[in-house]
């Protein structure tokens, strides 16, 4: 199966800029770079996919906001606003959890709208996700920086609306 994948990659690379004969308006993305020698032997497929599958902008997001050690990484308990390409354009909420799976990384935001709790899970590599803005971080010891949460997954916030309102107390939406 892997040799077939490499043969297909080689074929697409050889026809890099040939026009598509069946449509004038088709968008042909550029062919991917040559696979390294180790990949042709079947070694390191998952790290290769982790580096190449997301687009460069998304890769930057993944490397800073969703890494495990970066100083600017997102912490659970921060308040974020996600801007989408289509309607409804924005969704804000408290970050409950980050699920790190390389290109499949996703996070869950929780908000209370019209007295009803709503949770949305966004996938970072989705082309619909245009921007992720941090409204209030969660690193410091309270105040503008927000309290540091002692847990990675804040699912207990689903049962305590008072803690939710404590987190969103200092924000003027």
């Amino acid at each position, binding site marked *: 199966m892997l040799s077939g994948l490499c043969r297909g990659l080689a074929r697409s690379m050889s026809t890099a800029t040939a026009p598509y004969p069946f449509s004038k308006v088709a968008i042909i993305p550029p062919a991917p770079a040559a696979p390294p020698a180790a990949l042709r032997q079947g070694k390191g497929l998952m790290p290769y996919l982790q580096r190449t599958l997301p687009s460069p902008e998304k890769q930057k997001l993944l490397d800073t906001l969703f890494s495990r050690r970066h100083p600017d990484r997102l912490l659970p308990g921060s308040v974020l606003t996600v801007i989408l390409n289509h309607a409804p354009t924005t969704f804000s909420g408290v970050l409950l959890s980050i699920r790190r799976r390389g290109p499949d990384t996703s996070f869950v935001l929780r908000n209370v709208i019209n007295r009803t709790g709503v949770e*949305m899970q966004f*996938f970072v590599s989705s082309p619909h996700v245009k921007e992720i803005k941090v409204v209030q971080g969660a690193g410091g010891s309270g105040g503008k920086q927000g309290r540091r949460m002692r847990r990675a997954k804040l699912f207990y916030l689903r049962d305590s609306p008072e803690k939710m309102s404590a987190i969103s107390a200092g924000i003027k939406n």
Partner: protein
Amino acid sequence: MIGLKSTLNVIDNSGALIVECVNVLKNKVNNGWGSVGDEIVCVVKRARPVPAALQASSTAVKVRQGDVRRAVIVRTAKSVRRPDGRVIKFDDNAAVLLNNKREMLGTRIGGIVSADLRMKGWGKIVSLAPKVL
């Protein structure tokens, strides 16, 4: 995932407060479980007391406890996937009452509804809702 005996809040001004699902229509497609945008047959478990003036008039719609009505599911606590991979879930189950011709019984909606309703063809409800997510 709304099925037999599931309770839903009613978020329109028809007078009902809580309904219990009895049957999910078109269940050959969804294995007997209803999701956002599915029509259900339900029993009104709790309703607002009908004011005396309304009781006298014969043209107004009176929803009382024990009525069997149709409804459409507008919010589910079970997560629903959008076509772009997003997942949305609410804190409760909610429905809007309908008559047999798929028209709303109430005139206003008080609460958010899921945007999946638009995809299933309930544009009228989406346009009346104060917030669609």
